[in-house]
């Protein structure tokens, strides 16, 4: 595959703060690649480095196979859609969209043609004569997108473009963005802190934390097989269930021990090489949809909260002093608040992490949902 953007061990610090720390990744032609992470994780700085608005302290950036690290933004063949202040308020919508073309001294008739084409795609035709400061927020974001689309950059960069539009428009625009991207086949590098948006929109996601890239993969890989405690905690809504404890081995069987509370982990031990984590603090995690009520389940608890989620019930089950697990069950299950239930978890979907390093032990070779 062709890499449109190559980021090679890029680092950037602002004063004492290391914003980006040795980040490397490739963005392939025609994909939507998302940088995902909480605020302050360095994702926007990484994007600005790719755009040429910041200089990296170390590392190189290649766009279309060309080293652009020392080139100014206007020579990089990229365009950036900002979160805010996306349009020039003193110009009409038409002038806004035409800006990049006029700068390039393209003949007025061609400008008109390009602008109306793009306006058509983004359904902005009826707004063209209006002042850009007077149209709604979601139209403004569309104008910003249109301004980038008319200049036909190799790579379209988007910095949380949907954060400020209202929830319903956001969902609609997310879908439209995806459709437009499919239609014109442009490479998109998207930055967001919204994990649902990333999962819905992306071909691939790079999760960032504290300036470092912690995992790159398809949305399914990221969701189903988080490689670190951070990713496991960050991805998923509702979040994963986590149980902390010490990993012990008694008579050949693995056990998670937390005070008097013990969970057998033999099924999980078949999938991971747990020997290295022996007698260390670990965190195990599983998603609510991978657990279930099961009379033969390994742990027992009492139901504390019942939420109705469509045709399912979300049960909050206290299994230990400070351990409350969330599992889903059908509305036909006979549970009330205070019911004693036993839980079992699909062992293929249990994740084990070293509590200190946050890392996952190596798999034993048996499939673990890795495609």
């Amino acid at each position, binding site marked *: 595959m062709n890499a449109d953007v190559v980021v090679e061990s890029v680092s950037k610090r602002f004063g004492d703060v290391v914003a980006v720390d040795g980040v490397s990744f490739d963005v392939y032609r025609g994909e939507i690649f998302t940088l995902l992470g909480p605020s302050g994780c360095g994702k926007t700085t990484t994007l600005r480095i790719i*755009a*040429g*608005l910041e200089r990296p302290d170390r590392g190189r950036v290649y766009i279309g196979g060309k080293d652009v690290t020392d080139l*100014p*933004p*206007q020579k990089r063949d*990229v*365009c*950036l859609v*900002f979160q*805010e*202040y*996306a349009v*020039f308020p*003193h110009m009409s919508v038409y002038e806004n969209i035409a*800006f*990049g073309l006029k*700068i*390039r001294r393209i003949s007025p008739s061609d400008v008109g043609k390009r602008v109306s084409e793009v306006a058509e795609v983004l359904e902005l035709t009826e707004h063209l004569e209006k002042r850009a400061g007077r149209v709604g927020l979601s139209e403004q974001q569309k104008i*910003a997108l249109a*301004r*980038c689309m008319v*200049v036909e950059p190799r790579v379209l*960069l988007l910095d949380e473009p949907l954060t400020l539009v209202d929830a319903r428009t956001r969902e609609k625009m997310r879908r439209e963005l995806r459709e437009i991207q499919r239609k014109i086949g442009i490479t998109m590098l998207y930055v967001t802190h919204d994990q649902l948006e990333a999962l819905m929109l992306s071909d691939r996601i790079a999760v960032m934390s504290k300036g470092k890239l912690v995992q790159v993969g398809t949305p399914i890989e990221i969701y189903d097989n988080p490689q670190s405690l951070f990713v496991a905690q960050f991805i998923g809504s509702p979040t994963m269930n986590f149980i902390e404890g010490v990993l012990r081995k008694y008579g050949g069987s693995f056990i998670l021990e937390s005070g008097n509370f013990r969970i057998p982990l033999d099924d999980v031990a078949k999938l991971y090489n747990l020997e290295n984590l022996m007698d260390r603090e670990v965190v195990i995690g599983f998603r609510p949809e991978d657990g279930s009520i099961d009379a033969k389940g390994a742990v027992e608890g009492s139901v504390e909260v019942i939420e109705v989620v469509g045709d399912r019930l979300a049960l909050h089950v206290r299994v230990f002093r400070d351990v409350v697990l969330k599992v889903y069950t059908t509305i036909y299950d006979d549970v009330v608040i205070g019911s004693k239930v036993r839980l079992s978890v699909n062992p293929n979907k249990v994740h084990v992490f070293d509590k200190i390093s946050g890392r996952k032990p190596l798999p034993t070779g048996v499939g673990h949902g890795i495609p």
Partner: protein
Amino acid sequence: MEFRIVTKALKYIVIGVFALWTLIPLAWIVSLAFKSYAEWRVSYFVPKNPTTDNFVLLFKPEELLGRYGVMGATAIIEPATKPLINSLIVTAATTFLAVFIGFFTAYGASRYRAPGPFTLFFTLLTRMLPPAIFITPIMVYYSNLGLLDTYFGLVFLYSAVTVTYAIWILKGFIDAVPVEWEEAAMLEGATPIKVVFKVVLPLVRPGLVVAGLFIFLLTWSELLFALVLTNISAVTLPVHISKYVGAVGQLFGPQAALALIGSIIPVAIGYAIQKHLVTGFTFGMVRG
């Protein structure tokens, strides 16, 4: 209800007093400009025999001399046309130059970190010194450089001392322009210089108007520098007015007439750019 009428009345009275306070000198000038010699030193407002002599004599120096005599070396030998034109040239050039340089300085100060917080403040320093302190050394320099009594000399000094105002006024306006607009323009292919001219400059136009008008007014009415640095060929309006002294003493009538002519120009300009002025003064408050 009654209370409201009282407060309203009070408001108008206060405004009226202030209006009167500021307009009295102007009214006095209007009155003087149409008075004949006999009435210059009397205290009533409305001239008994209104005359346009004062205006006519401004442009006929020989007749003026004949009527009021000569007093020392400050004799009026030129019609008032030349100083009017001089003032227009000097003020226009100063305004343009100060706003132009001020804009780019302010842009730099706003967008890039000036070395140390004191640098920009330093530009105010020239305005903190009383001009009388540095006008003497400047006159000596100018004399050596051959800049005395030239347009260039005046414009050079005027724009140097007024550029400070342009910087400070425009910096506020430029600060209010989100840097994202510039970055977006850059990513769409604009070079830094195009970004400044196509994005920043149009957005701060109200600021340019405010700074320009302010500097225009300051320069138009400046007396001290021009008095020291000019003599014949680059004499400005305020200096020329001060020269109307005859054997009979101060020639209040022609002075008032010329002051009146001189004040019409800024008033006309202010009126013409009124619309921009309002946006200028409210800029920064309307941004949501």
